[in-house]
């Protein structure tokens, strides 16, 4: 009578449409947000930035592929882009003059130990890039704390003059019982630091570039504001209180925000989906925890920088935070009027 369907049609449960979002798109979004910092890294530290990043990314991809295919014997999922993000973040937290073999070793630890031992993407409790970075930092402290002084565009690796990071200068100064005023004379102005003109890891130095990435991530709804803002807010608040109480012993909150890996860590590492809490309340607890640990290590600990440990320690609390801070259920507390 009427037209019949002459072929097999799909019968599946609703919904029948999808947002077209994908893991790859999210990872690509993160990579795009890292471009400004990458450009500043190249300007400040020369082509070495490109080389270190390239080596880290390629190593991460190769290790992920090889481990999945030959050790775990499952379908490699390198196309999801998460290994690329791990590679870039690892590279961004390393000094530009690091030997290549250390970059490769760090990538192996990041992907192999940080990610694959737990079952791959989605199952790792700790941020893989930070696992790699901290492994290198503890095992090879000399290579990891020999920072090239930024000279500007076109400098090759061999030309770089090594120096300390601003946080390192302060730690050293305080150890020698110098006053903060004396110490600060060895450190560049806040304005210069804002553009990344200081010693440090190749992707962490330029606050402005990282902030542009942050705005992009928020606009694209890849992350929410909760984690980065609470981390940076906590750091600012607590260093601010200490600074007001004892200005001769403590650096200003502006200094603390602009130096070290605070901004890179807060925006790009602490917000790693897999290793951060899932509700806004949980995210705030997580952010405050990271901020506090960072400040305590920076001020009282053995290391000049603390954010990497802050993030890793709080990563361990994520399952607990998730089970305590559930979203508010609809109809749970009924207030009707």
């Amino acid at each position: 009578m009427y037209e019949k369907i002459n072929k097999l049609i799909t019968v599946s449960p609703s919904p029948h449409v999808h947002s077209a979002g994908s893991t790859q798109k999210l990872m690509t979004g993160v990579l795009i947000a890292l471009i400004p910092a990458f450009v500043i890294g190249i300007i400040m530290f020369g082509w070495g930035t490109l080389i270190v990043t390239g080596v880290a990314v390629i190593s991460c991809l190769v290790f992920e592929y090889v481990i999945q295919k030959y050790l775990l014997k499952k379908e490699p999922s390198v196309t999801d882009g998460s290994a690329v993000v791990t590679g870039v973040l690892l590279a961004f937290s390393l000094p530009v003059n690091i030997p290549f073999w250390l970059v490769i070793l760090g990538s192996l630890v990041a992907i192999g130990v940080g990610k694959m031992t737990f079952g791959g993407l989605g199952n790792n409790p700790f941020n893989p890039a930070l696992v790699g970075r901290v492994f290198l930092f503890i095992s090879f402290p000399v290579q990891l704390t020999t920072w090239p002084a930024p000279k500007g565009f076109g400098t090759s690796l061999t030309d770089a003059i090594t120096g300390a990071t601003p946080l390192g200068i302060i730690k050293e100064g305080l150890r020698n019982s110098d006053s903060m005023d004396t110490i600060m004379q060895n450190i560049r102005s806040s304005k210069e630091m804002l553009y990344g003109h200081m010693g440090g890891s190749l992707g962490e130095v330029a606050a402005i570039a990282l902030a542009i990435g942050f705005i992009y991530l928020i606009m694209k709804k890849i992350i929410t504001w909760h984690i980065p803002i609470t981390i940076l807010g906590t750091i600012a608040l607590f260093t601010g209180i200490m600074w007001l109480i004892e200005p001769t012993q403590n650096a200003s909150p502006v200094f603390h925000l602009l130096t070290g890996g605070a901004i890179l860590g807060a925006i790009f590492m602490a917000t790693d989906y897999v290793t951060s809490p899932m509700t806004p309340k949980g995210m705030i607890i997580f952010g405050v925890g990271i901020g506090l640990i960072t400040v305590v290590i920076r001020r009282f600990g053995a290391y000049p920088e603390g954010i990497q440990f802050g993030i890793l320690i709080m990563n361990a609390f994520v399952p607990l935070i998730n089970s305590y801070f559930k979203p508010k259920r609809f109809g749970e507390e009924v207030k009707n009027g």
Partner: protein
Amino acid sequence: MLKSFPRGGVHPAENKFSAGNQITKLPLPKTVTIPLSQHIGTPAEPTVQRGDMVKTGQLIGKYKGFVSSNIHSSVSGKVLKVDKALDSSGYKRTSVVIEVNEDIWITKIDRSSDLRKEITVSGDEIINKILDAGIVGMGGAAFPSHVKMSVPKGKKCDILILNGVECEPYLTSDHRLMLEKGEEILVGFRLVMKALNVKKGMVGIENNKPDAISHLSQIAQQYPELEVFPLKVKYPQGGEKQLIKALTGREVPSGGLPIDVGVVVHNIGTAYAVYDAVQKNKPLIERVVTVTGNDVKKPSNFLVRIGTPLNQLVEAAGGIPAQTGKIVNGGPMMGKAMNSLEVPVTKGTSGILLIPEKESKRKPFRPCIRCAKCISVCPMGLEPFLLMTLTEKEIFDRVEKDKALDCIECGSCSYICPANRPLLDYIRLGKFRVGQIIRNRK
């Protein structure tokens, strides 16, 4: 700022292709297949048998039990058989098959198109007429309307809501009805208000239908007890609990019903059917069905008799597009995929959506990356990723504790998941198993 529900929600592409097309009447089919179970609850008992001659509007199935509904013949002609026949759910259900012969209506039905605004009947009569006319919720769930009209003892209804949200993408049948039958709909709505003795009526319409908002607002000016509210466009605002929250700020408690917060919600199509039943003595024998899809030649809104085969509707909309890969009864978010078009229109058929092949298959899913997007879009404040994992691992006590039964199955979680995870599939399974466990406990 426009009202909306506060938590969760998504914005799927609206694709309301048929919104500008007037409702057209389809010619009568040669035969109709009228299932005796077109509603939630007990199937109706057949009152006719093979060989009987029936008239349009005649009762052919009598409700059985409280949650059930009357079924009427939508055509006149000869009953060919009362037997199992395939319906849109894919199951065979007892149906009355009638060979159409002319179109002779039972005499008590007022077939004129005159608008009858004055309400002359009592509240109880209204409820009886709704029961007699076999009216069910026409938004898709097909819950018998008279059940909603009896407020349980100790509860009070003080606000009635008319649901003109139509938040499902593609569907436009309620939108067209509001534009073309606005007066009738508001009379129908006021009839329900009278039956429930409610003094306040709220009409919720999403802001993507400005013509319907202004049209109904204008008509509502003559009724001081009614007010039309434009709503911010957000899926699933047409969900009862979300709409109540958006309009009144009241939150239906977990496991509760709208009446627990003093509200009853009815749909546009239902209000129109109430008008027909009470003012015109006309039972529910026809409805508006949207036929649409990205490649459909003439996306349309048809007024069709219940029991008309769906392929006749698709034919009238330009036929099945060559690349069709999925046929959905309803909208893309909550509609059910069908395996055949040789099934009848029922009281709950709001639309037929033909989905192209390339969009009809799901992409393979990847591991959960804990992005929490499912949590942020869930309008019920649930954790879909967790419910899926718990169901996979068969930890059903936690599935229950984490409120799987509150899930309204809107599909926002599966829609948003970047890893394409079949979250709602698993939540449905979890709900089903938890339901079994709870029943066994008693």
